[in-house]
């Protein structure tokens, strides 16, 4: 694996043209996370939309991996219920901890599959996880927690339906 395989076009595109970047006018929960080894920072805000989906805003500064990851995350979780956001985060976490041996599920992860190569660089995994950690913390602070019973939007239901 070389460095070009790490920096997929999708990652560069999200880094240069971040989606959903910006803070919310009104947030129910906010979390500021830093990577103390390199100084990457990300702030994630969350509130609940009228349809029960997450409304997510973020700001940050840091490397391409951390900032692109925030952009991809904002696309993936905006408008989805908390249970589905949890499921996507769990899938992403599994990919990051898989040392490159986990085959990413594009149906769940969307553009986040491009981060598969990050798992082979231990120093960069924290960069990719930074916004997801912030989202989880912001949700907890806002009390936007998934019910223990998975609802129809959850991934476990979808997985069962896939051959």
């Amino acid at each position, binding site marked *: 694996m070389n*460095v070009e395989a790490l920096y997929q076009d999708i990652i560069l595109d999200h880094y240069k043209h971040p989606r959903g970047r910006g803070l919310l006018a009104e947030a129910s929960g906010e979390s500021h996370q830093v990577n103390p080894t*390199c*100084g990457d920072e990300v702030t994630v805000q969350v509130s609940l939309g009228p349809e029960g989906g997450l409304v997510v805003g973020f700001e940050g500064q840091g490397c391409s991996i951390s900032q692109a990851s925030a952009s991809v995350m904002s696309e993936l979780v905006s408008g989805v219920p908390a249970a589905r956001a949890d499921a996507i985060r769990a899938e992403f976490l599994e990919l990051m901890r898989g040392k490159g041996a986990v085959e990413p599920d594009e149906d769940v992860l969307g553009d986040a599959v491009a981060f598969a190569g990050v798992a082979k660089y231990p120093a960069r995994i924290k960069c990719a996880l930074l916004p997801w950690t912030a989202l989880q913390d912001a949700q907890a602070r806002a009390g936007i927690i998934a019910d223990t019973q998975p609802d129809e939007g959850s991934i476990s239901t979808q997985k069962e339906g896939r051959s």
Partner: protein
Amino acid sequence: MVESLDVARIRKDFPILERRVRGDHPLVYLDSAATSQKPTVVLDAERHFYETSNAGVHRGAHQLAEEATDAYEGARAEIASFVGAQPDDLVFTKNATEGLNLAAYAFSNSSALVAHAPERVDPRFVLRPGDSVVVTQMEHHANLVPWQEACAKTGATLRWIGLTDDGRLDLADLDRVIDSTTKAVAVVHQSNLLGTVNPVRLLMDRAHAVGAIGVVDACQSVPHMPVDVPSLGADLVAWSGHKMLGPTGIGVLWGSTDVLASMPPFLTGGSMIETVQMEHSTYAAPPKRFEAGTPMTAQAVGLAAAVRYLSDLGMHRVAEHEHALTGYALAALQALRGVRIIGPDTNHDRGSAVSFAVDGIHPHDVGQFLDDRGVAVRVGHHCAWPTCRRFDVPATTRLSTYVYNDESDIDQAIDGILAAQAFFGA
């Protein structure tokens, strides 16, 4: 001439430099400010000690115990001689961070003891509300956070000397920052992030003029230039072994005889006592007072081998070699479009740690491109986060050289930066 050291011959003494990394790239090690590599003589010295003389030091009535004690105290004498010091003024610590904490804790412990055991306290080490401790804005966290804590425990105020835009200390209002309230002045000799070499003698003289204790972090100077530690004019000077070809797990705190004798112990327990009763204890004279528990004997032996190796090379030649390499690196980086040196961009009063920012590319991404070619550099805030903030950068990329580097290593790094710029379109 850069080649005043025979780098090709020196490289043969460092087995790790034969490593190939990230596929089949020869290792280009430009991260010696983080930790240096170790020559075979250092590894052999540690192994030889364990194979022939390993035993507890300063105790035991057998031959190996005598040999181990001789090896440990002999190492202290050799390392002292390397920096122009007396052996009994050298305290072995786990690392430089511990040495600097030892210094800061002399203040907070004295400040705590003064209420109940005033006879044990030298008033120079007592901090009270209204007193101040002075550091600089270019300190490694190891020479900043311990002083923040000492101030938090005692109510003293932390002050700092700011920086100029070219990465040097702003001494314009020195007499206002260090004043009659100042009890300690703790400064770095050579910045690990900016590379700046500071006028420590001037700062220590100013400290003494107001009756303050002077502390110097010499982690980046003692490995890279001839340093006669007592003539820095400080009271306490800390540095680490692993940045000067020695093993990890050993650092040195030098103190003037008088100041060490006035300091309460830091870590307590075995080895550092004189008498122990159930009610109270009395303590050994320095340096043993500050060396609680079983010491790092093999590491001391390894560090002594490292200073012998450096002495054989000649510290003046080491400094000259690095000065030339630093000039080469500064010129090569400044010739690149979109690259900004963070720190002095001229090669005077500056060491070989060269930090820079690349427009449009985060240091983590620069470092990744260099790593992809086998070039090892440090990226991040280098444990000097406030210094990064002063220069409005979240982090930097840092090249740092040592006796085993030459211009071709710098060239490899430059090629990697160009590749990153091409890839990111920056």
